[in-house]
């Protein structure tokens, strides 16, 4: 009997990958934001690669679901040289989601501090931008910028995988110079 894994591999060899064919372009909005926050002098060569550490600072987990989706074969983030890493010490970019609950504020601050320079902080999702629908709670700081300096935002509730990709591509372009 042919084992199922062999069949599956053979099928993909013949039919090609699941990866979406439509090209994703860097987000214009994000490029403008970056030009403002980074300035021309801050451009650093990273050799077309970005390592991202994700921090959930109070998200409802909707943003996490979409981050998982960009890692799946259809959007396949890694084909652009962007990958998620396990430690802030390996990261160039901190991707912050959630309105930043006060219970996570210290952890967020320390994770940013643990990331070597040059580093960029991206606030992803409406909550991380300004607290979203959790704004004004006793338990919420109200966006990543309330706790750490933010270089770029990716709006949406949650942002779609294409939004996330084009935001990250803009960042890659900007820091690549």
């Amino acid at each position, binding site marked *: 009997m042919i*084992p*199922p*894994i062999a*069949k*599956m591999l053979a099928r993909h060899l013949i039919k090609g990958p*699941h990866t979406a064919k439509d090209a994703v372009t860097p987000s214009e909005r994000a490029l403008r934001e970056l030009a403002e926050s980074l300035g021309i002098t801050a451009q650093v060569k990273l050799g077309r690669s970005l390592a991202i550490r*994700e*921090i*959930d*600072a*109070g*998200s*409802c*987990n*909707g*943003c*996490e*679901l*979409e*981050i*998982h*989706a960009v*890692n*799946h*074969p*259809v*959007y396949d983030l890694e084909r652009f040289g962007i990958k*998620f890493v*396990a*430690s*802030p010490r390996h990261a160039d970019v901190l991707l912050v989601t*959630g*309105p930043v*609950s*006060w*219970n*996570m*504020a*210290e*952890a967020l601050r320390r*994770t940013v501090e643990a990331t070597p320079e040059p580093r960029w902080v991206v606030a992803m999702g409406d909550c991380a931008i300004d607290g*979203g*629908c*959790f704004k*004004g*709670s*006793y*338990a*919420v700081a109200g966006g990543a910028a309330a706790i750490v300096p933010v270089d770029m935002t990716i709006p949406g*509730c*949650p942002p*779609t995988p294409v939004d996330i990709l084009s935001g990250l591509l803009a960042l890659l372009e900007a820091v690549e110079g």
Partner: protein
Amino acid sequence: MMGNVTLLEFLSMGREVANHRPWPRYQLDNKGWRALAEQMSVSNWEILAEWGEPAEVHVLLRGEDSGAIAVASHPCPDGSFYALGQFRPAAIRLERAIRDLWGLVPEGLEDQRPWLDHGHWGVTHPLGRPRQYDGGRHVYKFLKAEGDGLHQIPVGPVHAGVIEPGHFRFHCQGETVVRLEERLGYVHKGIAGLMSGKPILDAARIAARVSGDSTVAYSIAFARAVEAALGLEIPPRAHWLRALLAELERVANHLFDIGAVCNDAAFAIMLAHMGALREKLLDSNARLFGHRLLMDRVIPGGVAVTVDDDAIARLLALVASIRKGFKRGVSLYDQTPSLLDRTTGTGIVHSTLAHRFGASGFVGRASSRAVDARKLPGYPPYDDLDFTIPVLADGDVHARVVIRMEEIRISLNLIEQILTRLPDGAVSAPLPMRAGEGVALVESFRGEVALWVRLSEAGKVVRAHPHDPSWFQWPLLEAAIEGNIVADFPLCNKSFNCSYSGHDL
């Protein structure tokens, strides 16, 4: 001690509160509440949720055999109540949270440590009588394990993967976990406080974001509680469309979970395969309903979407294609012994514990606890649909995977039934303006979501309390990992896939 009384017989000794629907609410005095607490040690009534108000504590109960549901309330003007957690360990964390948020002291509870309050809010008891926090560091005392060669491994709140934050304290002997203690509350956003005073539709947006992966289930629960409070009947088509969205959400989450469990056993091809299938479904959601995760598509009064013949045809084609791809995934799982070796016999939850904690969803069903809110108490349109509830007795990671697989098959089947029998008519009804209290129990992919709401005559939410099934699943994870090796923790954790956000509120 009282003999064999039913839940409703017992509660009828209290005062019934008017305008609480669809199930009654009774106020118990000190004596009545004490008797209820003691009854907890002899009866098989389940606690479905427990929450507070500034001077009252509420518990949502189900009489297991009869399926009767009721809320018992206990006014406690002196700021303390007799703890149910003394007799039902499932209530311990709920009561610790009640003290943190509303300042009501659970009397007799051995564990008086704070739960959601980490000392960062600037105030204590934010939903009760808030007082400025007088400063100073909160030191959390973890439970101890002592013995030769024992060591601690602290993990989190920021984890290595893309997951939500929480802290796990392991005590290990070599590679074997002797004790795991969870510390949660990191993503507490004050949702109950945020919903108070909001117009119904604004509160619905917040309810949809209690736990993003269960957004449809929470929206249905909130809508059903509001409709119950208002005494509003919605059009049948709205019920059916809600069920369609709920089953799509269930399939999407289960697909991802199955992939992710296998990925945590280092079998990445399964995650890729399931991820591609899930993406088909989410992409179709975006095209047909305008949102990949279906957020805000269910609204109080009905639904904000509809389907035409073309959409039905596309959805039927989607079901067929997912079924085909899913079958390939299942045979890959079934015929990979190295993978089965990791999942079988790992992280066992004994059925006694599952029953004792009232665990619902796949965690309960993999440990012989066959509860499902779609069957008991049941709600439309499920009483009209043909489906079964899968149950297994093994209680290991494998059983939780197999339950999910079976549920995907059942949900795909349900989607087909819904699409072929969808009634015509309107998809929403206007909300009347009136005061009332309502409660709803809805089956999310993870288990039973309970939601209680009180509305004012001005059409605003006075108070609301969402309850996530994770409250009764998290404690079982601590039991499941005992005696397993640390390296199997991700596997066990993913097989539970409890919500941090839904639990922390």
